């Protein structure tokens, strides 16, 4: 079984843990950076990105998460997690973990009253995929290293770059488990790669 951590500083942690466990894997709520090395993969959940960033700084998570990524261990960021992984934020504020070649606009659809549910077409998934957008960010720019997985209204809302997976929306608020399955597949591939080397 794979050991998948959920960064448990703030946000929708239990929802991800439930999905990891439903997929038959071991879930860990990660509160300390010292817990990272024992994990196969990490999920950075939705929450308030500014609050999570403060807590990442207080508890010195930044370098250990960057190291985790340098070892090609998979990371999945939803909503605030996507904001935290970006190389650049278009509102001019300082980017956080700078791991993924994406530019991100926070609260791109407006305030809470503009939050919405919809159905998306996703590359590699058949049929409609439910998506819940809550004060959601969008990806405004990607480099050639990034694979766009889904768009909404011509704006990028899901993407993958090697071992990194991000969504603007919240698969953990729905019964949709294909994102978790895709992530687990990425984790298994990363495992195989590391045993070959």
């Amino acid at each position, binding site marked *: 079984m794979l050991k998948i951590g959920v960064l*448990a500083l703030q946000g929708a*942690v*239990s929802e991800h843990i439930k999905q990891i466990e439903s997929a038959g894997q071991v879930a860990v709520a990660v509160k300390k950076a010292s817990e990272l090395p024992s994990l196969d993969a990490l999920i950075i959940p939705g929450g308030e990105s500014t609050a999570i960033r*403060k807590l990442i700084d207080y508890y010195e998570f930044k370098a250990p998460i960057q190291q985790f990524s340098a070892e090609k261990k998979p990371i999945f960021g939803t909503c605030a997690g996507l904001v935290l992984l970006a190389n650049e934020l278009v509102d001019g504020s300082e980017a956080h973990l700078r791991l993924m070649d994406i530019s991100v606009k926070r609260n791109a659809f407006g305030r809470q009253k503009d939050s919405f549910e919809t159905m998306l077409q996703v590359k590699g998934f058949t049929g409609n995929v439910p998506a819940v957008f809550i004060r959601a960010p969008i990806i405004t720019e990607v480099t050639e290293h990034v694979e766009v997985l889904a768009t909404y209204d011509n704006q990028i809302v899901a993407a993958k770059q090697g071992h990194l997976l991000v969504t603007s929306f919240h698969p953990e608020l729905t019964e949709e488990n294909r994102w978790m399955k895709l992530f687990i597949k990425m984790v298994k591939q990363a495992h195989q790669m590391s045993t070959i080397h």
Partner: protein
Amino acid sequence: MSQLVGTETVKRGMAQMQKGGVIMDVVNAEQAKVAEAAGAVAVMALERVPSDIRAAGGVARMADPRIVEEVMQAVSIPVMAKARIGHIVEARVLEAMGVDYIDESEVLTPADEEYHILKSEFTVPFVCGCRDLGEAARRIGEGASMLRTKGEPGTGNIVEAVRHMRKVQAQIRKITLMNDDELMTEAKLLGAPYEILREIKKSGKLPIVNFAAGGIATPADAALMMELGSDGVFVGSGIFKSENPEKFAHSIVQATTHYKDYDLIGKLSQELGAAMKGLDISKLSLEERMQERGW
């Protein structure tokens, strides 16, 4: 593809994103920025914090929209604001302004002493206070997307918040163990919608997020409420009525995340300066107790 706004998932989901966080009362843009910088997950924009509302007396109403707007412009985190219990128009005004969450709050003077707002009719989500499972279930029935214990606002005294959180949790445990045929009578006794109790019995938990509020004044208070099963905390007067608001705000945020790390909470509690001056609840008359408001 069609786009659905204001659905139950979207409104409840917003509160789920706030879990493990601290929501702070602020009365101006400057305080809102202090709260955001300390790692607050949202701010509650008010004209006066509860302890000042208590001191001022008279009728407490929705804040001046100018203050709410000023706060909304100052920060990128969600902004909440309070409407009086049953005051449909105050709530509609706040919704039209684009406030992210409305607190139908007993801290303000109720506009209706019989009915609450039918919150399911709104696009904006609502948070409401509760003291027991019956009250919690009634608010869920009306469409609240988030709950908080009422505690006793503006007192800096945690005792009522503890009482309410323990009561809700104990009542959930009780119905979880009940036979199905006992549930209808329990619904009658609690004054709770049957269907909602059935849902809670089945899942063993409330269907929406439940924060603690009403009396949190120190990092240890915040951690205590998390220990008792709160999903997060509201701090009203506790921050900006303390001697060192910035330090208090930072410390309460950290204690909420790491509520089981007692060494850390010890360190966070050192040389914080004076907490807000507290009130003994037993000295408050029934009319002075805000928690009695709500039906």
